[in-house]
């Protein structure tokens, strides 16, 4: 999504205000004039200034381009669904990987993404690739590199 600089500038000012508000209850340090809030607040002030600069820049260039340019995929449900699937896959992994385990979650995510992106005609090869990829990643990262990938419900048969 391409938006006019004035809109992103306003968003930046809102973010700066949010940072300032979130740091409000940070405790000061005993005997020191500054505490943990100093650096984030410095960034917030600079951000607000940069936001103002973006607004000025956007207002000056408002005739050059429309305020908001929607990307091409928004008109295509198939591409919008693919984007949603990618984001949901990450959320799904965060939510269930600890209980279901890496192997099952990863296999489910890869299968759904492959079927969605490659089409239903290739479902058997998609299932195969997903299975091989998940086992290979589990073997390489979980075993060789010692990454503590969760086993979840498969704990009894963990290798």
């Amino acid at each position: 999504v391409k938006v006019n600089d004035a809109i992103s500038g306003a968003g930046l000012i809102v973010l700066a205000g949010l940072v300032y508000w979130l740091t409000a209850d940070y405790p000061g340090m005993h005997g020191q004039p500054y505490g943990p809030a100093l650096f984030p607040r410095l960034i917030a002030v600079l951000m607000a200034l940069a936001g103002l600069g973006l607004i000025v820049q956007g207002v000056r260039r408002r005739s050059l381009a429309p305020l908001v340019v929607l990307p091409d995929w928004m008109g295509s449900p198939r591409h919008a669904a693919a984007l949603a699937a990618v984001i949901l896959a990450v959320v799904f992994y965060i939510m269930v990987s600890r209980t279901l385990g890496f192997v099952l979650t990863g296999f489910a995510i890869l299968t759904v993404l492959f079927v969605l992106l490659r089409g239903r005609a290739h479902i058997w090869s998609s299932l195969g690739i997903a299975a091989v990829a998940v086992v290979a990643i589990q073997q390489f990262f979980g075993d060789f590199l010692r990454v503590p990938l969760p086993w979840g419900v498969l704990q009894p048969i963990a290798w």
Partner: protein
Amino acid sequence: MDAVGLAFGLIFDPYVLMVMLLAACFGLFMGAIPGLSATMATALLVPVTFFMDPVPALAAIVTATAMAIFAGDLPGALLRIPGTPASAAYSNEAHNMTRKGKAELALGVGLTSAVIGGVFGAIVLATSAPVLADIALRFSSVEYFWLACLGLTCAAFIAANDPLKGVVSLLIGLLIATIGLDPVSGHPRFTFGVVDLMGGINFIAAMIGMFAVAEVIRTVTAVGRPEEILQERIGNIFKGWAACSTATR
């Protein structure tokens, strides 16, 4: 000069050369996978080196690290996903060259510059380490502060076409870096009670999120036919030397 001759004698031992070859393959592999960095390659090699003599052990670690740093350019140039944080700065440019069929040149430039930089650094360290150590000891917080300022201003103004947006992205990066425990007071900043955020945002995780996930999203939302990439033969990556030497003449 005797020491240099002796050092070459130690290095050009068939066993050491074989260890270096294997370590180079290992480094190539670690560097080319996004998320596995040169530091991680070193960390994994250290336990293996306990069972080696000092010279092959050091050779293995140095070779694997140097190789991993270059190998980060491979996915950077070919997939627009940098393999190591060191390759992140120019992966967009390298990928643009690949799209024009110049992957060979992009990788050649990466390899040649990595070799020049590595050899130059090694020579400087070998010849002037005592002098450098003397300067390093005088480096205090003041010097570090100005060094950081220099780096940050460079980061902002390297975005040549719009410095203001460079400053904005610098500020967003700094804000993300403040997430986690404050190093001085130990107060958690912007963690929202999540314990995992207390250690801050890991550099590798940020890199994967910004480059790899962005590239995935760009690919799945690409409307229309996938663009044709001119596939030139990837052969001699030193072919660019000819252009380089004619340009300087």
